């Protein structure tokens, strides 16, 4: 998951990016409104965290302009003041949720999770497909109720594919959203990860949840949830 963090205060920006990277996100940082606009136009993000009081271009204006240019990724606004005027303006400009400073990082993580899940069309924090379930809050994957041991990167790949629904996701898109920019795009590492992931979530190879679409990429085959998968 690739995030854009827009915050002019360096201490808070460092804390935010540090925390989010630790949570397994790929993070781009912008220090003012202009930089935020540049990044927002240049890259397709899974979500953006935007501080409202920004130098050069105000946060509300950044959101308005990005929305005006059909950038639809979810936006979480941060506001140092508890003033409702600011919150309402931000939400009216096209933000999806707000968080008032000071806040707890856990709260931020929960809001981000919910935003991205919501943007992908899932109402519950637990994404289910057949007897496979992925808990976005706990970052756990279960198969028929049994916990599946995944590496952080395998989890990220699975989460991204599931959140993408029936859409075909190219290898480039996967690397863009799951790796830092300097990742070597020629490597076969994605294929290796997909292979391992398939073995873990489909040990007997009967369901084939991750399909390969020749020349295009991968597609997660969603199966309506069963009783077994939804209970946890």
């Amino acid at each position, binding site marked *: 998951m690739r995030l854009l963090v827009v915050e002019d205060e360096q201490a808070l920006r460092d804390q935010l990016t540090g925390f989010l990277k630790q949570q397994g996100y790929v993070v781009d940082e912008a220090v003012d409104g202009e930089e935020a606009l540049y990044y927002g136009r240049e890259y397709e993000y899974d979500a953006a965290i935007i501080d409202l009081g920004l130098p050069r271009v105000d946060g509300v204006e950044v959101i308005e302009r990005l929305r005006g240019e059909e950038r639809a990724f979810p936006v979480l606004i941060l506001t140092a003041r*508890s*003033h*409702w*005027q600011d*919150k*309402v303006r931000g*939400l*009216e400009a096209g*933000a*999806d*949720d*707000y968080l008032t400073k*000071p806040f707890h990082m856990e709260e931020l993580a929960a809001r981000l999770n*919910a935003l991205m899940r*919501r943007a992908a069309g899932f*109402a519950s924090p637990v994404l289910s497909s057949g007897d496979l379930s992925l808990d976005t809050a706990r970052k756990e994957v279960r198969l028929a109720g049994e916990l599946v041991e995944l590496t952080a990167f395998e989890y990220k790949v699975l989460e991204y594919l599931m959140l993408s629904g029936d859409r075909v996701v190219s290898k480039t898109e996967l690397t863009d959203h799951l790796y830092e920019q300097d990742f070597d795009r020629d490597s076969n590492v994605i294929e290796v990860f997909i292979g391992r992931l398939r073995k873990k979530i489909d040990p007997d190879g009967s369901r084939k949840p991750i399909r390969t679409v020749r020349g295009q990429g991968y597609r997660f085959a969603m199966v309506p949830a069963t009783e077994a998968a939804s209970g946890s």
Partner: protein
Amino acid sequence: MFKGSLGLQTRLLLLTLLVLGASLSLAGWVLDRSFRASIEAGAREQLELVVYAVMGALEEADSGLFVPADAAEGSLSRPESGLYARVRSEMGELIWRSPSADLSGVEFAPEPGELAPGDFLFFESDLLAPNRYYLSYSVIWEDRGDEVGLVFTAAADTTPFDAQIGEFRRNLWLGLAGVAFVLMLVQLIAVRVGLRPVRVMAEEVAEMEAGQRSTLGDDYPRELAGLAENLDRFVENETASRARYRNALDDLAHSLKTPLAVIRNALADEAEPDRDLLRDQLARMETSVSHQLARAVSSGPVVVGHLVGVRAVVERLSKALATAYRDRGIDVRINGSPEIAFRGDERDLLEMLGNLLENAFKYTNSRVQVVCENTGELGLAISIEDDGPGIPASQQQKVLARGERGDTALQGQGIGLSMVADLVGVYGGELRLAASALGGAAVALELPGGRLPSRAQP
């Protein structure tokens, strides 16, 4: 106060001077004209009498027409008396000249126009100085059976008339100047008396600035009473908000000292400070800061009655909150006409309703209901209800406790609610908590209100 422009007193006096000057000049001019006209009419009348007297005295003789020597009496007989008469024929042949003219060699100025028989012509001429009034009368005279055209002319020096006019003018302008002076004096007194309350107000404001008084007097004339009252309320408001800042800052300083001390001790005493303890103290500090700052920055009741449509604000907030709580599918119902208004600052209303609606959205299961109505002419009642778990009766008092320091108030719902309670208190309103018929909490607000004119709807 009047920097860059003239003072009120000077303005009024200048205006009066201008109007007075113009009207008195006009009056003087008209009077002067009519007096001059009446003087000239008098002169003409006098000359007519002379003409008639000469006509009456004219006698026929074989040698021609003549005026007997005793006919010219009084002024006509004395040289340089200023009154002269002459009879000439139509052709210009002199028939008779009064001794006054004859003896001093006075010549008569020619008539400035044609003179038909039976016509009088009155004119003034200085052609043969000095300046004189002339009256000429042309008649057809029977002279020994023949008809001859005769012109009788009487003339008078204008000097005595001019003297009269001069005298009149002097008196006229003196009189008018006197009137102007008296009127200006009256005006000056009127302005000073009329503007006295303004001066008194300025002095009282200066005394207020110097801290010698806290309100203006209450014996101002009707036109100024409103201003004085608003000024008083403004100052009162200013004092109140200063007190609010001071209290908030005092409370803030006080409530930060304890956690700061705890943190300092924890850092000094232990090699590995207790993280939970630090986190708790930080949370206390956060709560204090947000609570006290919100209290301090509230605008409070505004002096000039500014009306804010309540429904528009509720709709705006609900729409924004519905975005943030999109996946909860909360059903919001708003009752109340769009004219219902809050009298105060829009940001304060946003703050109060924002916090209350956010709580309702946070705790509701599915429904939020907002009802607003006017209570009387100057009142406003807003109720916000939800179908969530509600606030236990035992805690209702606690979350509302106003003036209670932020660090001792409840977390979560409590901070928002006690802040709203503070703001409501600033407006002299009331906040009540109850159980809603919907099953959750019901918050009722009473605030200063009013009605927007129905056309000014957004």
